[in-house]
């Protein structure tokens, strides 16, 4: 197995987003970890190059705390616009993140629904249109809908990030069929974001042709987040290899793997 992994060089299969060639197809979020101190070890084990974080009012009890202090050098920072309920709020957060020196990548997240945290595709589209005009590399988090994805593509999004299931639910690819359609119909990279709870689910998304996956809760809430980060890294590579290898045809009935001639009991 090591030979196979070693002969497959992920940097020969890079993912181009915003003019950057990414060799890792695992994006990692930094929320919900028991302490910030574990974050550098998780990021190293994951091999992730793109890492998300959130902008918030400073915590007066801990005014020195800043997640950026725990990011390895050369990380591509992907601030999200979590907390935004409208396109205007998302645009405001994106501009603030850029002013904080985080580069020009942004994950648009516009949510009004507090129970399932499902994104508002309409407001997400408006924010995408505006931020693309301002020169941002825009990765919109969205409900997997083909019409909305086409409009996001036309608006200049750098990738499309459909949810697999609600944020933090660890329920996997509940929207699998809709994501499959996006992969088939949209020429932009499709990055499955939200809900992936197990490495096998990340592999499943990659095997069906997702360009990358974004994982946070599944790693942060694992018994051993560092091991889980490594497991996701392997799963994403395995799923990608499986996709590139071209899975065989599925059949309803059996098709013998062994020859159907020369049986012992033949007369």
């Amino acid at each position: 197995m090591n030979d196979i992994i070693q002969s497959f060089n992920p940097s020969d299969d890079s993912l181009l987003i915003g003019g950057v060639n990414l060799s890792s197809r695992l994006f990692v979020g930094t929320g919900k970890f028991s302490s910030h101190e574990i974050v550098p070890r998780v990021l190293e084990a994951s091999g992730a190059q793109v890492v998300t974080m959130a902008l918030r009012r400073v915590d007066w009890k801990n005014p020195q705390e800043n997640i950026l202090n725990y990011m390895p050098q050369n990380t591509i920072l992907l601030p999200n616009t979590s907390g935004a309920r409208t396109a205007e709020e998302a645009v405001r957060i994106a501009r603030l993140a850029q002013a904080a020196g985080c580069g020009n990548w942004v994950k648009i997240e516009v949510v009004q629904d507090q129970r399932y945290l499902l994104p508002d595709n309409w407001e997400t589209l408006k924010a995408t249109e505006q931020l693309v005009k301002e020169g941002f590399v825009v990765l919109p988090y969205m409900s997997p809908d083909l019409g909305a994805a086409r409009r996001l593509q036309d608006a200049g999004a750098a990738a499309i990030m459909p949810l697999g299931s609600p944020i933090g639910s660890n329920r996997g690819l509940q929207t699998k069929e809709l994501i499959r359609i996006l992969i088939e119909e949209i020429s932009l990279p499709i990055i499955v974001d939200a809900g992936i709870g197990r490495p096998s689910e990340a592999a499943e998304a990659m095997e069906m042709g997702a360009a990358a996956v974004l994982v946070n809760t599944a790693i942060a809430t694992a018994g051993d987040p560092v091991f889980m980060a490594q497991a996701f890294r392997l799963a994403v590579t395995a799923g990608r290899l499986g996709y590139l290898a071209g899975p065989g045809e599925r059949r309803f009935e059996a098709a013998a793997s062994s020859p159907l001639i020369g049986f012992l009991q033949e007369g």
Partner: protein
Amino acid sequence: MQIVVNGKAQEILSECTVFQLLEDKAVTLKAAVVELNGIILKQEHWQSTLLQTSDSLEILVFMGGG
């Protein structure tokens, strides 16, 4: 004089710059971002910007997020 910091009214001394306020509150200056009355205030202007009565200031930093 009174200003609003992150949505809460606060008394501060007059002749206080944004930079002094951040230092007094021990905010990490690296990668903090400030909005003054709804407009982003770039870091190079923190030292030269004097706070005025009723100013509304947002002081933001990055936290873990997905």
